[in-house]
């Protein structure tokens, strides 16, 4: 979406027809609108929201028509106020107008319902008037996203607060195409369910019974998943509380050293817990893959005894090769040097070995058996050696875990025993929170287990259903449709997983770049797998969460929006010629007084960097915010400049009403 022209007619304090043409120059992509307090900057933002969504977000939203226009109109006259916006999106040019009419009766206004009109010129140059204008607008910029592109700068710091996590997640999902995939998966599931019901209707009694059971199991799985999600949310909340307690303990002089040591030990504890799990995994693997060797000992021994016994009796080859005996006889000399002349006793002795030497195939088989028995013995010994090593490792880790737990316990006792009441109370609170977290984790484990069992039950029932596949044609068709839904859902899920990982990586990379350019301090912005935005401060080899000032929160939020908009733009430019699933798009940023809480340096950094991220930037700003560092940083990108001329009887007694006019600033 690229904004072209905004026109206001008698809208709120804007008198007559006022027009703003936004800069669309790629290199000078900033439009600055100057206005002092009360001059109508926020009303302009409200006008954009009103024309697109019918909600201005302004105080007294029903008072739309300009006071001066109302006062000047004769009794009984019909007045109109409107806001129109021309914009382009994906090679189409749109014109949207929202208007409202009112009749002046007895000095008051009787409003009719607002009306929205939309028309556009498509890629082929055809003029189109859509039947449902609001639907078309909502497709271009979903209402849930407008707060990211048209925003009040003083309230934008929400994104870095805990309750901003949900908003961030949703914005990322919508902009990056994840929401589309998620919704597709959910809706396909609903469709699949309908075909399952249809299948049950046409199938025989026994199949119907199975289908009913399948439905019940599916509902149970869904209910368990909701329960699981709730518990996970509870765990996140507890973890946030634990983090807050840790932050506070670290910030207090009397507890800082102990707390830092405790956190270091907790980090080690976590590493050892992971190592313990790894060893357990290896033990399980060894036991499942090579465990049979433990029970082979007597079998190997008996097999060896059997072979020796038979060999001694001459019932199986002695290990003397037939060829070897024949060679000795032909040579006429034994291996010990004794001559073997014809008719001699020695020759008769050696000849007798021929009866004990086996045939070639038998010899080979016995030879292989010997080798296999040796290999089995070796493998058995190796398995025991590995098991002993793993058990020793496990024991060592267990000891370390116990020692660390004891050390942490001692530190906690020290904290609890501190004279400072707050520290003792915090430590008690942490203890309670840990118990709660343990309880929740236990519940999560139990629910996951139940889900696993239900899924197994579902698989069994589904197999039964397949076996009883109905002969009825309608049932078969429903079945095919249902199975198609399942296959498509599987593909959607895999695409979603691929895409989610790539979005997280892209966003993290871009956010780091943007953040380093915009924020002075060396903080690190991290977007975790749940798209939560966290800011850390490096401290030695570890990092700790940061308590930011309001100005820093503003910079962080703007950097985040900038990074998001930049990725969406990059995605759009890359995928423009393709009919891919994730198209991205151009999104403008319209900001009302965004620099309020920032210091000079952050103002300059933000002003210099933001225009390089968004395709189009509109800044509504007072002269006190603009002059100086913001102007220095942004001036080179300014393509259009306007001033809101505010008239008021308070400022000029010759003026009867307060109103605003827009004047373009033209540079020589």
């Amino acid at each position, binding site marked *: 979406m690229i904004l072209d022209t905004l026109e206001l007619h008698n809208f709120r304090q804007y008198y007559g027809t006022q027009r703003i043409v936004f800069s669309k120059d790629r290199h000078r992509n900033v439009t600055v609108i100057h206005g002092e307090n009360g001059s109508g900057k926020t009303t302009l933002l409200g006008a954009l929201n009103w024309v697109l969504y019918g909600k201005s977000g302004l105080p007294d939203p029903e008072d739309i028509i300009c006071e001066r226009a109302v006062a000047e109109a004769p009794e009984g006259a019909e007045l109109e106020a409107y806001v129109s916006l021309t914009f382009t999106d994906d090679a189409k040019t749109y014109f949207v107008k929202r208007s409202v009419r009112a009749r002046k009766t007895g000095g008051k206004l009787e409003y009719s319902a607002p009306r929205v009109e939309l028309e556009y010129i498509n890629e082929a140059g055809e003029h189109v008037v859509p039947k449902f204008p609001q639907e078309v607008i909502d*497709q271009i910029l979903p209402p849930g996203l407008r707060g990211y592109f048209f925003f009040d700068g003083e309230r934008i710091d929400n994104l870095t607060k805990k309750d901003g996590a949900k908003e961030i997640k949703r914005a990322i999902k919508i902009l990056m195409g994840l929401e589309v995939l998620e*919704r597709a998966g959910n*809706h396909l599931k609903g469709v699949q369910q*309908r075909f399952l019901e249809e299948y049950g209707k046409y199938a025989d009694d026994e199949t119907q019974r199975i289908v009913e059971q399948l439905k019940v199991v599916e509902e149970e799985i869904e209910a368990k998943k909701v329960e699981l999600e709730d518990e996970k949310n509870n765990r996140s909340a507890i973890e946030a509380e634990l983090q807050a307690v840790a932050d506070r303990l670290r910030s207090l002089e009397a507890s800082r050293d102990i707390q830092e040591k405790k956190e270091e030990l907790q980090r080690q504890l976590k590493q050892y817990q992971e190592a313990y799990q790894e060893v357990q995994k290896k033990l399980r693997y060894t036991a499942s893959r090579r465990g049979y060797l433990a029970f082979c000992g007597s079998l190997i021994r008996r097999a060896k005894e059997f072979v020796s016994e038979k060999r001694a009796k001459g019932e199986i080859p002695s290990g003397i090769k037939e060829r070897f005996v024949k060679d000795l006889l032909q040579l006429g000399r034994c291996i010990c040097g004794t001559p073997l002349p014809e008719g001699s006793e020695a020759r008769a002795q050696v000849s007798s070995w021929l009866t004990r030497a086996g045939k070639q195939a038998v010899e080979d088989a016995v030879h292989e058996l010997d080798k296999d028995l040796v290999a089995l013995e070796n493998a058995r010994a190796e398995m025991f050696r590995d098991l002993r090593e793993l058990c020793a490792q496990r024991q060592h880790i267990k000891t370390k875990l116990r020692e660390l737990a004891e050390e942490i316990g001692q530190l906690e006792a020290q904290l609890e025993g501190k004279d400072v009441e707050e520290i003792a109370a915090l430590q008690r609170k942490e203890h309670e929170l840990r118990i709660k977290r343990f309880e929740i984790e236990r519940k999560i484990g139990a629910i996951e287990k139940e889900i696993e069992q239900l899924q197994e039950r579902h698989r069994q029932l589904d197999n039964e259903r397949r076996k009883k596949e109905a002969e009825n044609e309608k049932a078969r068709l429903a079945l095919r*449709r249902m199975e198609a839904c399942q296959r498509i859902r599987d593909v959607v899920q895999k695409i979603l997983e691929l895409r989610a990982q*790539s979005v997280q990586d892209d966003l993290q990379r871009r956010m780091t770049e943007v953040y380093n350019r915009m924020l002075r301090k060396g903080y690190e912005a991290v977007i975790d797998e749940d798209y939560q935005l966290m800011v850390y401060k490096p401290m030695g080899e570890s990092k700790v969460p940061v308590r930011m000032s309001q100005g820093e929160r503003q910079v962080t939020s703007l950097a985040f929006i900038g990074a998001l908009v930049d990725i969406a733009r990059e995605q759009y430019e890359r995928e423009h010629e393709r009919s891919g699933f994730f198209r991205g798009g151009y999104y403008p940023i319209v900001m009302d007084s965004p620099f309020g809480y920032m210091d000079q340096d952050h103002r300059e950094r933000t002003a210099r960097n933001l225009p390089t991220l968004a395709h189009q930037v509109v800044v509504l700003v007072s002269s006190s915010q603009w002059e100086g560092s913001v102007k220095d940083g942004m001036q080179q990108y300014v393509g259009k400049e306007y001033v809101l001329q505010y008239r008021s009887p308070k400022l000029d007694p010759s003026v009867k009403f307060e109103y605003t006019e827009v004047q373009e600033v033209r540079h020589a």
Partner: protein
Amino acid sequence: MNTDEIREKVRSLVQSLSKPEQDILHRVIQLEKEKLYLDNPKFLVDDIEEIVRRAIK
């Protein structure tokens, strides 16, 4: 994994479906994009059901 690798993986996933299934998938994604703002999913489930019925006969 870079963008090209992801695109290639997505392509091969889509191609693992039969032609009618691929057609359903593309139509469903298009529909979801168009109706992203809709809070009531019932209409979408109705529309997708119709898409599946038409594609698999």
